[in-house]
């Protein structure tokens, strides 16, 4: 009897969690729809968006540059080690470029961006809510969705593809340095293989599409978590953690789905 009751309450608990999750997702979608009219800020107050792109971009630029360089160097070492077994080390440039442009550039940039700038966005909006700054704006007849949230969302959306491009470029340069100076490959072959093997429409555009989607999703999660946070210090800290966890998982999941579609050519 008691046992039965425990099972029932456990099932109930699961059900409640699922319902809560679905309700949150619903709120997030409604929030995104409410945010769309705020996009007009791009036309009317572009300086607000530019300022946020500067903030989020500069915030993440150093970490993207350093990570990109290291990933490129590691790719060169690992790729050479594998290719040399088939005497195909001349294709190293192609391997590095494809890995970075199609996959590692967009995904790693998105993960770094979520951890560095996404969490900051959530914390900032959440704290503004907790300290009544958003309520104050509303009473001053200023729509916080337009003034505070939309510029940050748009900035994230713009910044991620730009940062991903920088990541890939730095990674390829770093790989070139390692390949030529350390592994003794011919620099001309490195570039030539890359030039003939990388397709603009399939590879580069595919990577850009990915990073645009990641930018949208991270920005959306970050501003929603901040705006939806309980206005206490605990609520803001939880929301910040959730932003990083949720957007990292979303990036990886979406990456798998998009890769599957892209490789099959839709």
């Amino acid at each position, binding site marked *: 009897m008691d046992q039965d009751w425990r099972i029932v309450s456990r099932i109930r608990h699961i059900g409640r969690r699922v319902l809560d999750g679905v309700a949150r997702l619903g709120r997030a979608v409604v929030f995104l729809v409410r945010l769309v009219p705020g996009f007009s800020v791009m036309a009317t107050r572009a300086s607000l968006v530019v300022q946020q792109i500067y903030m989020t971009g500069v915030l993440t630029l150093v970490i993207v540059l350093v990570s990109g360089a290291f990933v490129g160097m590691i790719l060169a070492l690992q790729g050479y080690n594998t290719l040399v077994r088939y005497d195909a080390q001349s294709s190293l440039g192609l391997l590095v470029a494809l890995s970075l442009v199609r996959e590692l550039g967009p995904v790693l940039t998105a993960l770094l961006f979520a951890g560095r700038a996404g969490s900051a966005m959530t914390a900032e909006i959440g704290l*503004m809510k907790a*300290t*009544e*700054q958003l*309520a*104050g704006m*509303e*009473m*001053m*007849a*200023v*729509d916080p969705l337009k*003034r505070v949230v939309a510029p940050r969302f748009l900035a994230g959306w713009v910044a991620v593809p730009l940062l991903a491009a920088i990541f890939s470029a730095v990674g390829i340069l770093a790989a070139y340095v390692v390949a030529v100076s350390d592994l003794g490959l011919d620099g001309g072959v490195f570039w030539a293989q890359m030039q003939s093997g990388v397709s603009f429409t399939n590879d580069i555009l595919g990577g850009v599409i990915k990073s645009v989607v990641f930018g949208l999703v991270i920005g959306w999660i970050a501003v929603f978590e901040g705006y939806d946070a309980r206005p206490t210090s605990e609520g803001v800290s939880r929301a910040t953690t959730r932003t990083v966890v949720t957007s990292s998982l979303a990036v990886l999941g979406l990456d798998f789905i998009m890769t599957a579609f892209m490789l099959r050519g839709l």
Partner: protein
Amino acid sequence: MDPKPLRAEPLVSVRDLSFYRDRRLIFQGLNLAIERGKVTAIMGGSGVGKTTLLNLIGGRLIPAAGVITVDGEKVSTLPRRELFRLRRRIGMLFQSGALLTDLDVFENVAFPLREHTHLPESLIRDLVLMKLELVGLRGARRLYPAELSGGMGRRVALARAISLDPMMVMYDEPFAGLDPISMGVITKLIRELNDALGMTSIVVTHDVTEASAIADYIYLLDQGRVIAEGTPAAMQASTAPEVRQFMGGLPDGPVAFHYPAGEYLADLLGS
């Protein structure tokens, strides 16, 4: 000949207002009127919904029943655009100040001007300095909110609240947590600004002395309704037990000291 005053109707009128929060009753059948040009104090113990009332008047909350009109407009049914237009004519001073922490004092006061007007920079500068001069903080214009004391922060917030020359300012606990000198300064400012700028003021507070000093009219709230109203003198002289309890600061009386709870002994002995 007895010329009728041009605008006799009150600036804010609240009729039969009911409001619930999480099924808990906050207001039931609340009626009050805020006269133009006057300082009206809304008093009551902590948690009777004084701040909620300001949010209802400002249209941030929707009442369950009843009508609130501000300057002849029904707040709860106004479309968003109209509501925002109305809010431009209302200043609000939050208890926390609600200053924007990433902007300095000058930019905080300039914020409503920049958002709602297209004035040239030189004019914005003059207006902001005039408002800051009124609250005595012209010299503090380059400080950030984190560098201000509680009293100074509230004065900056006050300067911001009046930067668009509103018809009405709502003060949420303007005296809470201030030292006696800052309190005196704020009290004087509320009265002077009201009279000098021809505004209407609503002051939500539980501070009897300060409210009696500046208010023209006092409403006393408890249990979701107005339990007493009158001029400060009349309130002080009132013989009604609940009014005397509040004005005299007595711990228990008709206004219960205890939050509603079950029987004490049963609670202690129960599992």
